[in-house]
């Protein structure tokens, strides 16, 4: 009897255990720490996606090297500095193919830009789909978010079409794996871009610039899209839209210019003293990619490290926060020393760092604070300096001491360009320097990156006027007011100290690095007087171009170097030169040269590393091999011939 009791209790005991563990939803998987895609069906979700797309589209390019590889390498303005990790993008040599052989982790692959832009388009498609489907009556959803979606898509396709020509056109979010894609024509892509940017123009609000997308941002890029579509690279098909496009540009530009007056001084734009400081909120700025010192913000600005040339390995010098990490990727070509009126145009002296403060004094002669490095950007024929490099020879008149390192653009006896090209030294474009970083080698920068400012809007309008004149509407002189407006701002004002210099190196006070200011290499002074060899003056200068027949000497030099003769070509050269003077380094040069089909001529003439290699097929980028290898046609991977057919010619 006892046995039965035991048996029963044991059975009950085991049965309880068995049943106790049978939970119906044992395998249910819940996302507890993240949200799922269905979040995008809510208003809050759509807005959060729009914010995420700001990050993806505007910000992510600037934590990578591909952005300068694709936009400012291989042009007249810049070449490879001391570090060749990405030289293939500048040199157009035999290695520039659909696969770029990667030899260090910094080398940009051909698909980096492509992937980045399409991921942004995917996000934009999701915004458009969800905001369109939303039953919300809120303007924030139906107008702002939707407008942002259209803007980001149009903006990204504009980047794609200007780099690759026709690309696959995807306008709805992908939910299942699709491997069958073909390239749309450039015409189809432009139709989409202009439709998207028009929608954005209609939907976006007027205020919020430069952090947020506005109607003006849409107008600026819509004007740019019209201009691109009307450019030479599209001449085989754009005749039907050209006149209307060009006619539409100027009113859009005028509207933008009206609400985004130029900053009074060109230096204001680059006088960065702290994250989110005054120079990042100027009325001139239409749109910028936002970075801030709060390290919780996702994404880092790395562009501060790519432009700086080596200074830290020179005598009496060391690396410091204000001098930045000199990755030496981008060297200004001699074109940049030629394109300015170096006496009257302040922009060269406000865009380039030409003096470094001595910051590692050893011995009794030098002290920190002396002039440590000077770049003398003189003109051919100057006989003052015997060599491109003079150590402890050139005397600083202020201290009477010799300067440990002096580099001379045109040493005695040279009338041709290139004396500095044998070394890894050059005056560095300082528009992105960041002295507010947390540590001397910290790659994380806090400065915003300007994506559109009204000085460019003026030049877009000017170029439209020139193109209209070519079509017979108006005259070439119609462009001059727009160009002169930009040039007027670039003059020296009466009483202005022409030696005064600002760049982001001056933001050390905002840095948490704890670096002592005594080892600053940043010097609030440029080599204006040493270079120009003129007496000190505070008189005002003028850069006004009064007539299309009296172009500035520097432009005439470039026009003659390029062998241009027609008035249109000369005027186009003028506007391209003006873009260099105003916008050097601001991530748009390659597209300007490619679309105007001036790439080959200008690179051959001014980029000593790529000269001779560049060919007309380089006006389009290679379609990434990863894309060609990954897609299929009718369920089959492409044959080598089919891939070649989808590839741009020449690659």
């Amino acid at each position, binding site marked *: 009897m006892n046995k039965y009791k035991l048996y029963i209790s044991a059975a009950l005991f085991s049965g309880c255990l068995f049943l106790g563990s049978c939970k119906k939803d044992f395998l249910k998987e819940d996302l507890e720490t993240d*949200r799922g895609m269905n979040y995008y069906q809510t208003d809050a979700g759509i807005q959060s996606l729009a914010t995420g797309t700001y*990050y993806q589209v505007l910000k992510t390019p600037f934590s990578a090297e591909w952005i300068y590889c694709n936009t400012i390498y291989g042009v007249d303005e810049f070449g490879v500095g001391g570090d060749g990790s990405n030289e293939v993008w500048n040199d157009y040599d035999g290695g520039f193919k659909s696969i770029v052989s990667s030899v260090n982790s910094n080398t940009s692959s051909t698909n980096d830009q492509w992937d980045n832009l399409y991921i942004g388009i995917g996000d934009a498609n999701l915004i458009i789909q969800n905001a369109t489907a939303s039953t919300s009556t809120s303007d924030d959803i139906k107008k702002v978010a939707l407008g942002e979606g259209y803007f980001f898509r149009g903006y990204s396709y504009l980047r794609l079409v200007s780099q690759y020509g026709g690309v696959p056109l995807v306008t709805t979010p992908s939910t299942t794996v699709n491997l069958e894609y073909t390239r749309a024509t450039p015409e189809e892509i432009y139709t989409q871009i202009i439709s998207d940017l028009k929608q954005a123009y209609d939907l976006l609000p007027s205020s919020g610039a430069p952090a947020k997308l506005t109607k003006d941002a849409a107008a600026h890029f819509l004007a740019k899209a019209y201009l691109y579509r009307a450019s030479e690279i599209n001449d085989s098909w754009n005749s039907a839209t050209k006149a209307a496009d060009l006619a539409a540009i100027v009113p859009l530009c005028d509207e933008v210019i009206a609400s985004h007056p130029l900053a009074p001084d060109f230096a204001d734009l680059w006088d960065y003293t702290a994250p989110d400081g005054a120079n990042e909120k100027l009325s001139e700025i239409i749109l910028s990619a936002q970075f801030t010192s*709060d390290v919780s913000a996702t994404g880092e600005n790395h562009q501060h490290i790519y432009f700086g040339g080596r200074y830290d390995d020179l005598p009496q010098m060391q690396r410091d926060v204000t001098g930045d990490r000199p990755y030496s990727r981008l060297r200004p070509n001699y074109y940049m020393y030629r394109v300015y009126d170096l006496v009257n145009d302040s922009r060269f002296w406000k865009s380039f760092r030409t003096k470094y403060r001595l910051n590692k004094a050893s011995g009794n002669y030098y002290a920190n604070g002396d002039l440590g490095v000077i770049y003398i950007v003189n003109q051919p024929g100057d006989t003052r300096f015997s060599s491109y490099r003079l150590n402890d020879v050139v005397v600083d008149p202020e201290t009477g001491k010799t300067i440990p390192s002096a580099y001379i653009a045109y040493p005695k006896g040279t009338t041709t360009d290139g004396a500095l090209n044998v070394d890894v030294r050059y005056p560095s474009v300082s528009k992105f320097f960041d002295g507010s970083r947390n540590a001397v080698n910290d790659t994380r920068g806090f400065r915003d990156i300007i994506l559109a400012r009204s000085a460019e809007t003026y030049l877009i309008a000017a170029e439209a006027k020139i193109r209209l004149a070519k079509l017979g509407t108006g005259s070439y002189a119609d462009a001059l007011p727009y160009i002169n407006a930009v040039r007027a701002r670039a003059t020296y004002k009466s009483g202005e100290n022409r030696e005064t210099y600002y760049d982001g190196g001056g933001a050390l006070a905002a840095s948490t690095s704890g670096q002592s200011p005594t080892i600053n290499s940043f010097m609030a002074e440029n080599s204006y007087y040493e270079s120009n060899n003129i007496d000190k003056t505070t008189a005002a200068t003028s850069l006004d171009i009064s007539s299309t027949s009296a172009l500035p000497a520097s432009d005439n030099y470039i026009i003659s170097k390029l062998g241009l003769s027609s008035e249109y070509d000369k005027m186009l050269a003028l506007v391209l030169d003006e873009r260099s003077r105003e916008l050097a380094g601001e991530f748009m040069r390659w597209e300007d040269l490619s679309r105007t089909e001036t790439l080959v001529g200008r690179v051959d003439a001014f980029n000593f590393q790529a000269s001779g290699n560049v060919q007309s097929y380089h006006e389009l980028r290679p379609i990434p091999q990863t894309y060609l290898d990954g897609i299929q046609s009718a369920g089959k991977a492409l044959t080598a011939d089919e891939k070649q057919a989808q590839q741009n010619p020449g690659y």
Partner: protein
Amino acid sequence: MKTKIYEKLMAPWHKAGAVCQTRSRKVVAPSMAIMSLMIIGYSSASARTHPETKTNKTAWWQQIVMTGKVTDSSGAPLSGVSVYLKDTKTGVLTDASGHYSLPLKVSKGVLVFTFVGYESKEVSFEHQGELNVSLTSTSNTLNEIVVVGYGTQKRQDVTGAIAGISQKEIASRPVADALQAMQGKVAGVDITSTERPGTVDGITIRGVRSLTASNSPLFVVDGIPLTTGGIEYLNPTDIASIDVLKDASATAIYGSRGANGVVIVTTKQGKTGRTALDLNMSTTVENLQDKMTMMDAAQYIDFKRWSYYYKSPDVYPRGDQPTIENDKAIFLASSDPSAWANIEKGWASGSWDGSKVATTDWLGMVTQTGITKNLNLSVSGGTDKIKAYTSFGYLDNQGTQRGQEYKRYSANVNVDIKATKWFSMGGNLQASYSVQEYGQSSTGSNPLSSQGSIYEQARTELPYTVPYDADGNRIEYPGGDVAIKTVAGEWNLSQDQRVTLRAFGSFYAQIDFGEMLPVLKNLKYRVNFGPDISSYRDGVYIDSASVRSSGVNYASLGKTQKTSYTLDHLIYYNKSIGKHDLGLTLLGSWTQYNTETSSLAAYGIAFPSQKWNALTSSYISSTDLSGYSSGLTKSQLQSYMARLNYSYNDRYMLTLSARRDGASQLAEGHKYSWFPSAALAWRIDKESFMNASWVNDLKLRFGVGVTGNSAIDAYATQGALTSLFYPYESTLTSGTTPSTIMANQDLGWEKTTQYNIGVDFALFNRRISGSLDVYKSKTTDLLMEMDVPTVSGFTSTYANVGATANKGIDFSLTTQNISLKDFSWTTTTNLSWQNDHIVSLANGNQDDINNNWFIGQPIGVIYGYKSAGLWQASDEALYSIYNANGSSFSPGNVRVVDINGDSAFDANNDRIIIGNTRPRWIVGMTNTFTYKSFELSVFLYGRLKYMYDTGGENEGARGSQRLINYYTEVNTNADYQKPIRSDGSGDMYYGALGYKDGSFIKIRNISLGYNLSPQVLKKLSITNLKAYVQITNPGMLFSNINWLDMDLISPTYNRGITFGINASF
């Protein structure tokens, strides 16, 4: 002479055959080729197996007394052997000298001799007398117990492909973890080594099947799957046995987790009637060996000069025509005057003399003699009712690179109590605490260089540079290149300490219903509960002067807590009807797994002694916080299983099983799947027609099974959004973007179907034994993270796509080549061959170049340009044709093959598959020699027939350089291209010179042991005492890549010597 040898060869079997009635007297001449290779001796013990039966007068009351002595095969007496009259309870045990005396009431019959660990023997007698018997050890025979998953079987009854290693083999050499103990010992198991203390090796069983899902096997410890991984925390001396389930008919019992094989670890338990104290101690002294020779200062200086020359021949002088001015410029004299002072010594005489330049031994700076101390103490004992085992282990493994160390304290308690006749309960609790000093951290704030270890970091230093200047100051950038920071003092500047506390339990309760109610005989219910808790802490501190630092102190603290449990309900039922034996196992199983993570990282640590322990708001400002996070992952598995074992007459065995698994991380509607298996075995040696005396065991097995793989991350089907902050000016706004991995709502199980045919054999009195398995498998619905065209807005997705196939052979063979009284030689060989290939991919039969997957090709291949050596000046006519078509070749450049012959090179037409990256052959061989009390064992290990991508030589001449035969105008017959000074691309096709055959065979270790004689031990009251010495990594037998140890896939390896003792009291 031949005849004589033959007679000698056959003698033992003649004689043995005469002894046992179960063995036929017929002699089958062994004709196997292997026989002729063997030197067969016979032990004198064999001769003693003669029963010297004397005929005595039978007493009138018909009672006789059988007497005799029982010995082992070496003639040593065996005490405690059970001797009884067959089919009765009449019996005795042998005494300490192995003698027995058994009175019997019958005058003829059969005596049965049984003893644990020995093969039972039946001997017939007809009259009173003396019957001396020798018993054969059953180690490595079919009688051992094999763990098959949710139960055990005798090896003779096993139907699947199961291999294993015993405690004896584990104890045969000192190892840090269970995987090291298995390496090269089990056919079909490929284990790659690592020498960082505390880092576990990689393991695959029978090659790979999955493309991106895990290929790691399932580890089961005492019946509980290690859900959280971490076999390295188990003290190997606590392991009683390791069984590896290889084929699908065996692993299907673990269903979804069985696809990559199952490693079942059984820990030690107390034994009835024996109490023991065991002590194992060893000390290892190791030094790092480097197979890669770096250029010395003079060689490197020449190399750099040539590189500049080939960069711009019109600017720089030829490498063999140096000038001091040029050297000053290219060696950055102004940036590092100390390094330049060293180079200047070469110019002291006015002309260059490279031998005057000193070479700094940067590598020697970061190495140390590694000393490993290992101590294990265990006690065990048991009665009929209670068995217990407990142990303590201590391992202190100091690395051969400065800063690397691993300490592990482990404890194990195992108790088993039979409370009543029908209820037993027990548990095993293992706890370990380990501290791994990882050495130079691989994380860090902002690496200027990202080498994996301090040694590789030191390798990047330029040979002509010096660590300290004339004043004794540390030079931060020796050589003046900001990409090369000094490694001097690095061992004090970067710390990465990983502490793991692990507790793993396996508890059970079992009710034997048969003991309550006779009608329920052999019905048992068992519940297993296995909790597993792992707490992991990783503390990193990187000083501002460290190589890994961007110039400001950095610390991070990461914690991971994993908790999981497995709950199994099992019902067992056995029934024997005549010659039919039936066994039924039913299972319901639930597993839950949770991971909680948290981390904190910050810059600007106030003072170094804080390390990662003061990341508090009073020291770290919010802007210095570089990261903080916490996370939670949960997953569950629910399973039901039924298994039927049937055997007929001990000859024919059948195993059928079916398991249904559901996994939470798969998509709704696709969570569950069935995993069936079937296996047959036939013990041919039991058949009456199989009466060859030289066949001891012969079993044929056939099995088929389906296993699964759901080894993808939890939430992969959910499309979790990525959250971020975007600043509108300084206002951070929360935003999201979709994951770049497209959510797949149809994600289901990956399934592998495998067929296996195997044979187990033991021949010639077990002098030859082993098994041979041939398998073939096909994996379908591959779980892959596949790249998708980014045009879709996504970069990849998880999908069930495609299929792979895999086939192979596992062969293991143990031969007792020589077996004399004082000398024996045993060879154990494990050989496996495997070949996998891809059957189909995402869209049918289309290659996927982006993922390096090609239909019909092995899963791992190298795809690229095929090298044809170097362009020579004499090839100008040819290369100028290519140069006209877009290339820019010059003499000394790498020449690649123009596959399609169009006189141009492009990625679409000229890349081909160079070779497979997974070895076809894996070989392990252990030769053991014993002479009296000495035992010498030599272990060889090899991986053969595969390609390895060494990466080629960039020859950009910025960093340090391995000593190579490179092209210059004065050395045109070179292995590698001409150097071209570059920070970037260098020679476009240099990678093509890097594909090499990776085959090697290595002597892993040689160990020599000495067992103290029983006589001496008796005086010391010690049961067993073995002293041994082992040499690790004495050398390679051959390797095709002479600057890498392909066993470790590293240029460096540790060579060391271990002294140890194992004592039992």
